């Protein structure tokens, strides 16, 4: 045994939050898998690269069945990083860890793609860089969700409309609605607009509502970014 | 110009009359649902017993009045003879 006394560095534990898809199977699982396959047909890369959490509260499965389901999902390229909605006693070494305390997040529904939400004329640009370009104003009540990257709007975003992006948001017009950037945990995402009259600005779940946005910033070009856990907004020249 | 207003009847009383009439008819229609429909079918049945005609060649006009309502049937009967019946109630 070595007589050297090793200086140990204290282990540092940090918490990280990630946004994951919550997959909720329903009985009968076979039918549900068929539906899933149909959905995957329509939106091929939908789960690609995104971790998924398996919410088993809607079904009654024992460990072997759960393992079988996880394997079935892996075959479909869906990586399960955890399971929830089960008795922790069901957990077994081979299975993904049981998670607790998951919180829902808006705006990620299978089948509701950003391009379909706007107009039929928009050609999906999913093959190229992860960036969505919207050439028309976004009207009140419309919701643009694009978790793969940046969203650029050539026009204004109406009061009551919302843009949700995995990357940054660029509005070449007046932003009157809600803009939520960096929703996948990308704290470096920013929001840019020609005029800020927004109802809500958020980057990676840190947000400011209209009340918190200084009057002096309104009516001119502005950008928002995250400094630590503070959302900062400043005028741009 | 104000000249127009002098001889033009004040519009609110006109509105009131129209509403009273209309609502009276709508309320009674609620109690006797589809009186018109019943009347129409019975009258057409009677005519059908005597003469053949096509259902879409029937024009029905109505004018609901204060004391008298007019229900007018215009039916085109083959050979081009038009029979027009007016029935007051």
């Amino acid at each position, binding site marked *: 045994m070595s007589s050297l006394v090793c200086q140990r560095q204290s282990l540092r534990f940090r918490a990280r939050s990630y946004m994951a898809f919550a997959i909720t199977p329903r009985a009968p699982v076979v039918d549900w898998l068929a539906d899933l396959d149909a959905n995957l047909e329509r939106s091929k890369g939908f789960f690609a690269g995104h971790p998924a959490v398996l919410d088993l509260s809607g079904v009654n499965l024992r460990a072997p069945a759960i393992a079988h389901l996880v394997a079935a999902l892996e075959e479909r390229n869906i990586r399960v990083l955890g399971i929830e909605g089960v008795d922790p006693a069901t957990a077994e070494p081979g299975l993904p860890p049981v998670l607790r305390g998951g919180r829902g997040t808006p705006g990620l529904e299978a089948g509701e793609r950003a391009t379909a939400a706007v107009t039929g004329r928009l050609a999906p640009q999913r093959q190229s860089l992860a960036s969505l370009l919207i050439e028309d104003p976004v*009207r009140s009540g*419309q919701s643009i969700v694009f978790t793969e990257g940046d969203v650029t709007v050539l026009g204004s975003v109406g*009061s009551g409309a919302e843009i949700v992006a995995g990357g940054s948001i660029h509005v070449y017009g007046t932003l009157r609605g809600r803009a939520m950037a960096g929703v996948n945990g990308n704290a470096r995402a920013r929001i840019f607009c020609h005029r800020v009259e927004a109802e809500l600005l958020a980057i990676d779940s840190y947000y400011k509502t209209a009340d918190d946005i200084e009057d002096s910033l309104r009516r001119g070009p502005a950008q928002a970014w995250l400094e630590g856990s503070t959302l900062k907004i400043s005028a741009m020249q | 110009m104000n000249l127009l207003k002098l001889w033009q009847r004040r519009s609110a009383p*006109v*509105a009131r009359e129209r509403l009273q009439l209309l609502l009276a008819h709508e309320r009674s229609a609620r109690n006797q649902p589809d009186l018109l429909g019943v009347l129409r079918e019975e009258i057409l049945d009677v005519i059908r017993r005597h003469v053949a005609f096509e259902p*879409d060649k029937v024009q029905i006009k109505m*004018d609901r009045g204060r004391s008298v309502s007019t229900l007018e049937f215009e039916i085109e009967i083959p050979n081009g003879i038009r029979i027009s019946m007016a029935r007051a109630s």
Partner: protein
Amino acid sequence: MAHVLVVTSGKGGVGKTTSTAALGAALAHDGDRVVVVDFDVGLRNLDLVLGAERRVVFDVISVINGVAKLSQALIRDKRLENLFLLPASQTRDKDALTEEGVAAVIAELRDRFDWIICDSPAGIERGATLAMRHADSAIIVTNPEVSSVRDSDRIIGLLDSKTVKAERGERVDKHLLITRYHPARAARGEMLSIDDVLEILLTPLLGIIPESEEVLRASNVGSPVTLNNPLSAPARAYFDAARRLRGEEIAMHVPNESKGLFGKLFGRKAA
């Protein structure tokens, strides 16, 4: 070539039915064959504004259900021979309006009329979406007031997603009609300006209709304002709007306080 026009707004009480009647009468007066269709099932109003309430026998639902033919349901205006009304049902509710039924009625109307003007109910539910479904163009009626403007924005979004044209990848032509404009309030800065509204809604302006007692008077007596008092300010504004619908270029008149004088003339278009 028939043109289907929807008059819509989102917000209630801004002047859809008044405008439908006024524009329909203006177009018919200038020679086109016009039918105005009331889509407000259960709360019909178009018959009242046109003064035809005593003559309603059949309605859109009767036609859809096969109880009556279209020709039996259409009510001809007593003053304008080119103007017809297809009333809404007062006793049924909006579920009686089916998509196929409406499509069939509109198709049949296209054969007989130059203009088919659909008076939409307020809201964004079934009645409103059915009214806009087959539209070639839309008139979005807006008051210079915050809720009306936001609701109009919502409706514009729906026009780009819930219509047959949008589903085919084409555009419904949109026109903004500002109603209940009050020059004094605008001058005092107590009413949203035309520019404010245009900047938010980004839709070409069809016309500006001033707030006026004439509109109430016309509705009281059951005659569209363009027929009842064609020289009044709102009527003249509606006539101009009708001409613009036909493609004529008419300088936009912004109503002002001075009676009898024409206000400043601008050529006004939104980007």
